[in-house]
């Protein structure tokens, strides 16, 4: 990953779901090596914002600009999105799952082992995903982050179902991603202890 100087800027973003305005007038900017932590009550639009950034949800209004990446690719094609659904096929083994995403998203057919080791899944490589526990399933979907290098990580509640050791492992991976100049936007209720992060609170006025 050669990231010179990434910058993501969002101006006056609005999101509409089912005819209801979830948020509007949202602006922030983020540079390579920085993490943005989204907080806010349920339904404030944390997931919607992440999906908008990933290109999975239409932008009702406003501008999302990403600079410093590959100009040929859209923001979504340079980002990882880890959402609530883990996108696992019960009949595919752990190794097959990671290899598939590595080939599909990154066109790199070999070397999925390092991703499994990074998430502590190496000993489960030949087990079908159907037999994994909730925490192991989550770790397997997080393994995509390591299997395919992409500059932006969009994480929606990445720590759900993870035990303390796995949270620590994830924080370690996030820290090294930031150290390499990557960018993270994460929605979480947990204080990850990432060190210096920027916070964005959504839906604060709706609560007041």
């Amino acid at each position, binding site marked *: 990953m050669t990231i010179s100087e990434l910058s993501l800027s969002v101006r006056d973003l609005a999101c509409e779901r089912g005819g209801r305005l979830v948020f509007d007038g949202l602006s922030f900017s983020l540079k390579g090596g920085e993490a943005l932590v989204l907080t806010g009550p349920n339904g404030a639009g944390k997931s919607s914002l992440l999906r908008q950034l*990933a*290109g*999975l*949800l*239409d932008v009702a209004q406003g501008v999302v600009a990403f600079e410093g990446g590959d100009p040929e*690719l859209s923001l*979504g*094609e340079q*980002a*990882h*999105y880890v*959402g*609530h*659904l*883990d*996108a*696992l*096929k019960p*009949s*595919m083994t752990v190794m*097959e799952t990671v290899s*598939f*995403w590595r*080939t*599909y*998203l990154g*066109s790199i*057919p070999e070397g999925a082992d390092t991703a499994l080791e990074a998430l502590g899944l190496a000993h489960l490589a030949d087990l079908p995903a159907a037999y994994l526990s909730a925490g192991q399933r989550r770790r397997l979907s997080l393994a*995509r982050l390591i299997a395919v290098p992409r500059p932006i990580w969009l994480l929606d509640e990445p720590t759900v179902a993870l035990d303390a050791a796995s949270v620590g492992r994830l924080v370690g991976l996030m820290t090294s991603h930031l150290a390499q100049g990557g960018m993270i936007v994460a929605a979480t209720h947990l204080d990850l202890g990432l060190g210096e992060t920027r916070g964005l609170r959504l839906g604060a006025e709706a609560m007041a």
Partner: protein
Amino acid sequence: MTRAFFALLARDLRLAVRLGGGGGMAVFFFFVVITLLPFGIGPDRELLAKVAPGMLWVALLLAALLTLDRLFQADYEDGSLDLLTMGLLPLELIVVAKALGHWLTTGLPLVVAAPLLGLMLNLPGEAYPPLILAMLAGTPALSFLGAIGAALTVGVRRGGLLASLLVMPFYVPVLIFGVGAADAATGGFAGEAGRQSLLLLGAVALASLVLGPLGGAAALRANLR
């Protein structure tokens, strides 16, 4: 991009083989319908031979429809489809890979099973080559046209019925020309009408190879956002 395409195709084939759902179920359904038919019509061999091409095609169509609804829905429900769209593969090619996978695991086994089931209906010997040729040309059209219906109903619970209704009108030309090519009354493809049917069936299939991915991708785009 080629690598991503084949990775997706290989994944779909692997899933279909392991789950044993799609293709196996369609062939079994095909077998059940054709087995029951002589019991319903009666053991009149002349009559069975006459209706055989039409019945084989109708049963094949229904069997293909039966497996359509899971084409995109499984990936939609577990979040895979979101991630697939974040790859470098255009949505149109994603639809091609999935429709091709559907054909290889459903359409092709049905074509292989058809001659065996033809025996049970006393299908005349000279009708086999044109029937199989017509089915080889027509079944890809079923998968690719079906992809549009499956994409339109991807977010609908139990969308299979709705997909079948949407797709049915597009299947009618395949049925008409497919039967026309194999029908003994038209002389099979030895006859002028039979040959024309086969050519028209080929045209429908080629058109569907273009329209299916375009329409399917547009429908998925509308559904995903």
